[in-house]
């Protein structure tokens, strides 16, 4: 049962003075879902009081409202999280006919509609979904997800594209490259096209002892396997979620999970930087 110490730090610089501001951060690991938030601490350079409010998926957003004028905001979040041991391959699945019956039921489609409908980010063109992106008749949902996880990992290049901040699944499929967010959106487009619910997950990944340097927040997906529940898949690393993954939140796509959102009274350019450290205790 590993315990992690996580440090999230962000610097935001503004060309002009910011008057009134409102920030929302989705960076604190969630409780439940096989993990436990032991303690956390938040500091901001404005010395403003911060508070939590849940978003519409029930995840804690850290919020700050300020009337102070500033040019720079620094925020530091430190926490400790205990993650339960997860063996993703240890479950008893349903038989294929049972699985299909649930997947095709009205009830299932209605209960999970939010994660079955494409968004701007996850939309792929039907022509892009060739046969190898389709679940075959003899494949269970889990086997299908494993195959796609592996396929994206093998056929797509991990390469940040600095021309656009975030690309949608359609262009990821065209370019055959992207970063973890892009692969997650593409994976969601594929599972949803196969009528399997999928949701976007934002969080932290423990990359091991040799990787103590600066890393970024991570993104992967969870897909709903009938009779089993939501299981996490990470196409960037071809892994099924285990206890190296620390979840912050989930949603339909990146927009529901973006780590920082601000509504500010200012004009001109701004620059955002952030840094993440995950250390196993």
């Amino acid at each position, binding site marked *: 049962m590993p315990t992690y110490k996580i440090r999230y730090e962000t610097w935001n610089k503004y060309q002009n003075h910011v008057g*009134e501001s*409102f920030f*929302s951060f989705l960076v604190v690991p969630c409780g439940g879902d096989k993990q436990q938030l032991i303690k956390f601490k938040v500091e901001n350079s404005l010395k403003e*009081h911060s*508070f939590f*409010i*849940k*978003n*519409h998926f029930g995840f804690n*957003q850290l*919020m700050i*409202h300020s009337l102070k004028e500033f040019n720079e905001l620094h925020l530091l979040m430190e926490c400790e999280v205990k993650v339960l041991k997860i063996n993703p391959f240890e479950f008893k699945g349903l038989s294929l006919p049972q699985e299909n019956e649930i997947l095709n039921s*009205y*009830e299932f*489609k*209605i*209960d999970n*509609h*939010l994660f079955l*409908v494409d968004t701007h980010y996850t939309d792929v063109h039907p022509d892009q979904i060739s046969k190898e992106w389709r679940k075959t008749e003899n494949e269970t949902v889990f086997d299908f997800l494993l195959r796609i996880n592996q396929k994206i990992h093998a056929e797509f290049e991990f390469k940040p594209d600095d021309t656009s901040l975030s690309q949608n699944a359609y262009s990821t499929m065209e370019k055959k490259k992207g970063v973890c967010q892009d692969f997650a959106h593409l994976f969601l487009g594929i599972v949803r096209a196969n009528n399997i619910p999928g949701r976007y997950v934002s969080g932290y990944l423990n990359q091991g002892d040799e990787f103590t340097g600066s890393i970024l927040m991570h993104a992967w997906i969870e897909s709903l396997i009938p009779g089993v529940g939501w299981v996490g898949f990470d196409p960037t690393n071809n892994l099924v979620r285990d206890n190296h993954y620390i979840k912050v939140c989930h949603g*339909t796509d990146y927009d529901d999970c973006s780590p920082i*959102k601000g*509504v500010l009274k200012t004009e001109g350019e701004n620059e955002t930087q952030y840094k993440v450290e995950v250390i196993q205790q």
Partner: protein
Amino acid sequence: MKTASAKDLFENYEIDIEKFDEVYDTNGEVRKAYKSIHKYLSSLDLDGFKRYNEAAKLSFLIQGITFATYNENNQGIERIFPFDLFPRIIPKNEWKHIEDGVIQRNTAINLFLEDLYNDKKILKSGLIPHELIFSSGNYLKQMLDFVPPGRIYNHISGTDLIKHKDGNYYVLEDNVRCPSGVSYVLSNREAMKKTFSNMYKKFKVALITDYAEKLFECMQSVAPEGVDEPVCAILTPGIFNSAYFEHAFLAQSMGVELVEGRDLFVENGFVYMKTVYGKQKLDVLYRRVDDDFMDPLVFNPESALGVPGIMSVYREGNISLINAPGTGAADDKAIYAYVPDIIKYYLDEDPILSNVQTYRCDKEDDCKYVLENMDQLVLKPVDQSGGYGIFIGNKATKEEIEEMKQKVLHDKRSYVAQPIMSLSVHSTFIEETNCFEPRHIDLRTFTLLGKDKSFVLKGGLSRVALRKGNLIVNSSQGGGSKDTWVIQN
């Protein structure tokens, strides 16, 4: 020689037996409810009537009752809302039918919304295709698995009715996204009382002055749990909004603050108002800002009209929003066709008010019928209000019909069609001809739902299509209005 002023104001009045005339029956006799007012207006000569007419207009100008349409300008240039001095009269028994009907309808719509955002039983039963809801841009994920204070979504509903040539009322549209127009009802009455005070006193006209009080009670009834004396306010997009007058009017009538987004902020899970005395916690907000602009954190991030974080406070149960966001999922014109089923499903009652037959272009049979009978139908985009984008088949040219067909084929989910309903007509003074002529009218009613209470404004806004033969009565399309009198028989 007969002078213009000696001319009988009703001299050239033509009765079209194909249409229901509210004032005259098919034999040309004045209907019972209208006898005495008709007699009074007939006794006036043109000069006399025009003096009254000018006085009424002036009264609107002085009160500052104006509106702006987005079509003709984008600088918020304001116009007087055209007002007609011949009031529309609804006898008490007819009104009872309307009142029962709109309460029933809006109560069912409220239950429908709670179900749509929670258990979704009506979708699971298959009565309404779930695709229809899930494909609607007005169905908000931000409202899922949440019930607002007092279990009310559509606190204020504007139900639009028409009277067909068969003499029956039909519901033309439901409006449950903060419908506007009530300030015109109240100021029409003021103008009417001043202009025709003697005649007004002769009738037992049901009062409408209690609207602001009832709205305030409704707002207080849905205050967050544990708040005994809620602080209420009205949120306006600002002075360039076409209905700004109404926002200011209602705030003043209720004695609550009129605020803009920049006057509010979220802190510690509550919404606060900036005041000269410091911050003041806000409990109930009647917002006249559209869903998409309410909270830049979860909706349109460019919006400067809303309050960042307000949706989270709402979901915590710490503020009440009127109307609830996401009510547009129920007044979409594609849903309209299902409202009679919705009433039966939730209330186990037959609908008191009828629907107009509606064809949904995303249904194969319906679409086929629509495409073959374009010239006899009215087509409406499902997600527009204010009379924008309406296509009237018998007024369209061949090219226009062809163009419309292509639009429908391109986006079937976005259109519904209805037979061309013959809206009733009402004598209306026409300035160009200096006499009364029949013009099409409808009726917007206003229903309030609060926690364990409901109220219908006794009267409503009778809208008039001022252009001859025109069927579209919306103010944004050059319509005017009349005072509406509900009277004891």
